[in-house]
């Protein structure tokens, strides 16, 4: 019974369950046929009743056995059904005394047992059936069975003969069936094994690809060849379980292959011997692969005359080399050596070829990166030199000029002795020229800083723009006076300024510089009419405007006046500026996040506008 109750293997269970289900179905059909056939004979009424009850009971037995088989106890289920039917047979025979169909019942039971429970079922139920037939025979002979119906009786002998014949037939059928079932199961098992080994191979290939992918990822991340390549060959060697991995780079100019890196101590050793050879070198697998630009595998180096034996690699047994190509261009060769004869197979070849391609791209990238880095360093150096030059210019050029200005001033003041009026005039001219030169130097330094991107603002919080405007107006006053001195009708200076401009963050000095530049320009170019300075706050910004009634600037010059060293007029009298004031001013305002522009009409005048963003104090 242990075997019966033990859970079955999935395969067996499934097979038997299918059979059981088929049997239950055919049984119902069989009983239904009896029902139909018996309808025409005189057995009708009894057979009808028997059949109906039998169908019901078999249904119950089938259900119970089906439940068992569902739970995996197929054998229990298989035994349950014939048992149930056997019991039913006894009951029916005893109750109805219908002997004519008992043989049929017995045979049915054995068939069911055979199909569902196998050979053991056939033997067991055949024995039980024979025993019950004999039992019936004796029961009838001794009058224990009270005949309730007058139906003719088929002798137990016939029943036994039936049972025996059918049992043997079934026995052999089942044996054949079981054999087939087992061979089918065996075949299935074989298939499983095959599948498993296939899965393992897929796993291995996946792992190889993963290593290749890992190496590739590494490749794209690291741009420094000195870091990248040693890691790369080591990863490849470990990942693919190889003896030695090395990379040769191709020197196009000399047609030479140079060992760039090799794994382990051997790699360092071989590299220290400065291993490089010409493209035509023989024997050399690497050189051949480089020449032909085609991967080559030597799975047994003893049978090859291309392999170059390296005394540092005594355990090499197989070698494979793959060209590193970017497009058609040879970057180098990836060389792999293994201690195992026959290490490199078809599948490997593809992976390594792809890997070699990836490395080629990486090396090319790294080479380009190296070049770029070199250029960047060069630029940085130039930049640094430029900065130093600017700083020293600023000091070295100004120091002597400062002396000139101050001495001239002192002499003109009479500090070093009396000077004539004529001398004072000359000294003052010299002084203003010196100051102009100083301004020029300052402007050139400013524009150089702007062009070098080195102009930094010094932002102060809470700058009072009203104060700054006043300071600029004060500074411009002498210029205006001087201009007015040569005019019949003095220029009117109008201020249209909001008196409570809110405090804002800005570069005070630079803001002054811009405003002074615009004002002095206006004074310089205006000979009649007025100059209006306005400053208002509008939304989130301040708008400044310097409007004059000068000659105006032709439309074509509106953009050009903001280019360095360009002036709107060729008039020598007016060309005293540096030509840098406007470009510097615009850059300073733009650095603040504002804008500076011009509106002008020939003959009517010019207005320069600029905006400064309003930046209230952040610390309260």
């Amino acid at each position, binding site marked *: 019974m242990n075997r019966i109750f033990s859970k079955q293997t999935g395969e067996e269970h499934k097979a038997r369950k299918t059979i059981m289900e088929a049997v239950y179905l055919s049984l119902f059909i069989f009983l239904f046929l009896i029902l139909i056939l018996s309808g025409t004979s005189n057995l009708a009424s009894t057979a009808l009743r028997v059949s109906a009850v039998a169908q019901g009971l078999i249904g119950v037995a089938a259900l119970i056995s089906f439940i068992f088989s569902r739970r995996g106890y197929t054998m229990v289920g298989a035994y349950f059904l014939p048992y149930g039917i056997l019991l039913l047979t006894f009951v029916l025979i005893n109750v109805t005394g219908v002997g004519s169909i008992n043989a049929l019942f017995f045979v049915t039971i054995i068939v069911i047992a055979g199909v569902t429970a196998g050979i053991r079922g056939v033997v067991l139920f055949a024995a039980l059936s024979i025993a019950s037939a004999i039992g019936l025979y004796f029961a009838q002979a001794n009058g224990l069975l009270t005949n309730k119906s007058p139906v003719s009786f088929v002798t137990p002998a016939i029943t036994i003969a039936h049972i025996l014949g059918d049992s043997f037939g079934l026995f052999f059928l089942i044996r054949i069936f079981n054999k087939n079932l087992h061979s089918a199961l065996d075949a299935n098992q074989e298939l499983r094994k095959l599948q498993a080994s296939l899965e393992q191979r897929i796993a291995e290939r996946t792992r190889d690809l993963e290593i290749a992918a890992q190496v590739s990822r590494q490749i794209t991340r690291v741009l420094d060849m000195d870091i990248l390549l040693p890691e790369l060959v080591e990863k490849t060697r470990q990942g693919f379980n190889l003896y030695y991995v090395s990379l040769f780079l191709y020197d196009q100019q000399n047609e030479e292959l140079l060992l760039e890196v090799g794994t382990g101590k051997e790699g360092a050793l071989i590299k220290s011997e400065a291993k490089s050879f010409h493209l035509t070198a023989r024997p050399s697998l690497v050189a051949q692969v480089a020449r032909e630009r085609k991967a080559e595998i030597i799975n047994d180096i003893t049978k090859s005359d291309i392999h170059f034996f390296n005394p540092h690699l005594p355990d090499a047994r197989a070698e494979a080399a793959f060209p590193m190509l970017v497009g058609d261009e040879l970057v180098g060769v990836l060389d792999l050596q293994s201690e195992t004869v026959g290490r490199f197979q078809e599948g490997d070849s593809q992976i390594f070829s792809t890997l070699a391609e990836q490395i080629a791209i990486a090396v090319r990238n790294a080479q380009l990166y190296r070049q770029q880095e070199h250029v960047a360093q060069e630029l940085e150096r130039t930049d640094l030199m430029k900065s130093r030059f600017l*700083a020293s210019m*600023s*000091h070295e050029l*100004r*120091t*002597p*000029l*400062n*002396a000139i*200005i*101050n*001495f001239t*001033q*002192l002499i003109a*003041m009479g*500090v*070093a002795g009396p000077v004539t009026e004529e001398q004072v005039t000359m000294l003052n001219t010299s002084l203003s020229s010196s100051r102009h030169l*100083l301004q020029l130097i300052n402007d050139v330094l400013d524009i150089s800083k702007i062009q070098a991107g080195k102009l*930094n*603002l*010094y932002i102060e919080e809470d700058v009072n723009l009203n104060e700054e405007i006043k*300071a600029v107006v004060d500074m411009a006053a002498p210029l205006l006076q001087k201009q007015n001195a040569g005019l019949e009708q003095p220029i009117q200076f109008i201020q249209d300024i909001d008196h409570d401009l809110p405090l804002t963050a800005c*570069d005070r*000095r*630079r803001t*002054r510089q811009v405003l002074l530049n615009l004002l002095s320009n206006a004074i310089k170019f205006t000979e009649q009419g007025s100059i209006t300075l306005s400053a208002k706050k509008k939304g989130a910004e301040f708008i400044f405007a310097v409007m004059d009634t000068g000659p105006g600037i032709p439309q074509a010059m509106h953009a050009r006046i903001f280019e360095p060293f360009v002036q709107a007029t060729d008039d020598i009298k007016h060309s005293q500026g540096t030509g840098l004031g406007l470009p510097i001013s615009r850059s300073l305002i733009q650095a603040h996040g504002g804008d500076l522009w011009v509106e002008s009409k020939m003959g009517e005048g010019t207005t320069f506008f600029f905006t400064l963003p309003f930046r209230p104090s952040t610390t309260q």
Partner: protein
Amino acid sequence: MNSQKPVLVYVEDDENSILVMKMVVERIMGLPTLYVLKSRADFVQQVKGLGVVPDVFLLDIQMEPYDGVELLSMLRGDPQFNQSKVIALTASVTNEEVSLLKSGGFDGAIAKPLNIEAFPGLIAKIIKGERVWHIT
């Protein structure tokens, strides 16, 4: 403190600048003398060797071997000159430099070339204790 005749010390490596300052201080401002010292490690010793306590130090910024900022910290390191007025003289007035001077503890800065007309007034303001940033 000598409020009548203030004592000025000037540290500068450019001869011409020294000459200009001497003329301005001695001839225009009419002070007896301008003390000129060298940018050296013994700067504080030099000051002490003068025999008078200076009212105002005028330090050039771009000097070798010690620049004005370093000299200032030497001065501030000595309790005797903790309260002395120290003014930076500078030719290149970049924004970075000005913020450096302000945060460095200078009491003011005066731009080069010297504005000779304004200079005496600035010194008077400094001695009164005002901070002077005459750098535009």
